[in-house]
């Protein structure tokens, strides 16, 4: 991950524009939540995304009434949009913890101004992801059977199944991310408690702040815990997508059964994660005038991370192709052919374009520093990563071993409604977040100021 460091070291664009004091930093960030009036833009955005959320709930409701048959899934393509979206969202959910934990351990101080909402994004992405495994099963009301709980049937989950691993990995990831995020929030909640003028806010923030008072002892334990948590989250974040990739790698389906998956899934996850961070950061810094805190440097570094992970992903594709030919396995060979010439070939080519070719323009410094360009490229990458999961899930399944059992997959309107609905849910949550919580870690920003330096 330290790939972006060296270039970062060379051109020293500041992580926070000069001229700020503890006070001004505090006021600028807290005012967004406390004093600044809620804009119409916010209401509009929240309104739309909220409606999308409702649409998703409707689609899911109908799903429960009729059964998964309303989706495009069939035999042989037993998994469709649900799993594609699940993997996509989980991947996006990787950036937050990565930024918070790994960059923290790597002392990438520039992370301080983006980690907070990156973590929030992670939480919302993971909850969007978590929805799909639950609703995609044939009998959702029994999905809890995947958890090991004592029961009268005296039966337990089957721990050789990657799906059970998923349950543990994803729930652990969600829990740890939540704790990490909340712990990071506590000092800032204390700030809001003390800054807010209206009673209700004081009480709510006061309760959430757990009576934080910034004692030196507390800070000391706090930092230790935070660091250890980062230390734990780092292998975790790497493991989660590894485990998700096991869903495929452990199976014997051609196109799934490959050892390259774990690293290439993790890289892909970070890839899409950073793309989503940029897609959120760029408009936010614009609308809330946070260019001083989320500076060019942040955009640059994120772009570089995407460039690097993008190349790893490209390597993954290359290896898949190579193995298809080198293994001499007729099924792998056919898989390769089918991706390039089969009925889903356009999707695969689009995938290559989105994930490999387009992002190469990030080599150009000018584009790396242009918010608009980055925003668009990030969008392309997100689409590309979705396509990647679609190719892996659907195209591998639709033509496997016995030619007699080949089939095609056609998503239905219910598939689309559910997918788009989760995007709405995700954004709606983000809107609420920026409105009621400090989207940038205030106390960590303070530490970035020169005054924060002390000598013994």
């Amino acid at each position, binding site marked *: 991950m330290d790939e972006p460091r060296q270039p970062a070291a060379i051109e020293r664009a500041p992580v926070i524009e000069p001229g700020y004091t*503890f*006070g001004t930093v*505090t006021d600028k960030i807290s005012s967004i939540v406390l004093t600044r009036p809620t804009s119409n833009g916010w209401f509009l955005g929240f309104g739309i995304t909220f409606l999308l959320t409702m649409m998703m709930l409707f689609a899911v409701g109908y799903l429960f009434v009729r059964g998964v048959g309303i989706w495009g899934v069939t035999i042989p393509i037993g998994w469709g949009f649900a799993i594609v979206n699940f993997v996509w969202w989980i991947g996006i959910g990787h950036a937050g913890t990565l930024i918070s934990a790994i960059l923290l351990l790597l002392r990438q101080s520039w992370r301080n101004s983006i980690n907070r909402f990156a973590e929030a994004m992670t939480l919302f992405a993971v909850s969007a992801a978590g929805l799909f495994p639950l609703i995609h099963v044939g009998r959702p009301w029994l999905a809890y059977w995947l958890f*090991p709980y004592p029961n009268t049937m*005296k*039966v*337990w*989950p*089957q*721990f*050789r199944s990657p799906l*059970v*691993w998923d349950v*543990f*990995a994803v729930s*652990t990831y969600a*829990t*740890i991310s939540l*704790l990490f995020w*909340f*712990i990071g929030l506590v*000092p800032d909640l*204390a*700030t809001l*408690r*003390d*800054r807010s003028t209206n009673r209700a806010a004081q009480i709510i923030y*006061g*309760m959430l702040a*757990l*009576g*934080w*008072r*910034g*004692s*030196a*002892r*507390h*800070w*000391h*334990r*706090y*930092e*230790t*815990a935070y660091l*250890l948590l980062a230390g*734990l*989250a780092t*292998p*975790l974040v790497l*493991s989660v997508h590894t*485990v998700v990739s096991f869903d495929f790698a452990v199976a014997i389906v051609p196109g799934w059964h490959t050892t390259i998956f774990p690293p290439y899934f993790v890289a892909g996850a970070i890839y899409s994660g950073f793309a989503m961070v940029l897609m959120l950061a760029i408009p936010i810094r614009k609308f809330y005038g946070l260019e001083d805190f989320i500076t060019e440097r942040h955009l640059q570094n994120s772009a570089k991370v995407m460039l690097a992970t993008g190349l790893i992903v490209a390597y993954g594709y290359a290896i898949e192709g190579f193995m298809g030919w080198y293994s001499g396995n007729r099924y792998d060979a056919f898989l390769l052919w089918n991706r390039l010439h089969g009925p889903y070939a356009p999707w695969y080519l689009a995938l290559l374009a989105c994930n490999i070719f387009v992002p190469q323009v990030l080599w150009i410094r000018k584009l790396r520093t242009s918010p608009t360009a980055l925003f668009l490229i990030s969008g392309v990458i997100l689409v590309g990563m979705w396509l990647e999961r679609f190719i892996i899930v659907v195209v591998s399944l639709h033509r496997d071993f016995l030619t007699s059992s080949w089939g095609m997959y056609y998503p239905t309107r219910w598939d689309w409604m559910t997918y788009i609905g989760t995007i709405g849910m995700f954004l709606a949550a983000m809107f609420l977040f920026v409105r009621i919580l400090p989207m940038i870690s205030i*106390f*960590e920003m*303070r*530490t970035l100021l020169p005054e*924060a*330096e*002390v000598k*013994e």
Partner: protein
Amino acid sequence: MKRTPVYGMMAEFDSAQHLVDAAHRTHEAGYLKIDAYSPFPVEGLAEAIGFHKNSVPLVVLIGGLLGGLSGYALQYWISVVSYPINVGGKPYHSWPAFIVVTFEMTILFGGIFAVFGMLALNGLPMPYHPVFNVPRFAFATKDRFFLIVFSTDPKYSPSETRRFLEGLAPRSISEVPS
């Protein structure tokens, strides 16, 4: 701590550097029961007030081990002892398959112990605390830095301590009622 009408004597500073120096001198002056408050973690402040012992890492270690062991034990018991079934010709104790869950449980417990252990050791949550009675203390979460000498300190005396603190050239000094 035994109840006294006064909780302690608090001095307010306006820079981290100033606070650290003050803390050093107070501690050297023989005050043991002191504490400092800052809007962000200040390097060396804890040492300055003579706080060295930190048991959070131990807690996390215990948590992690507990999680890992219970994770593996759970799977072993379920798959080998409680309800062994022949699944795809694999042995009941297919340890490689059990690694993932073991790992995740380690992380989960470690993390939970880290967070709640830290809070417990910090005595949080604690919505009320005497220092909040000092109006200026509201700035401790913005840009002011505070040093407090607790009235439980053997060396504490309202006049002496105030004089000593004045010697540190704070912005202001206030007595903290308990």
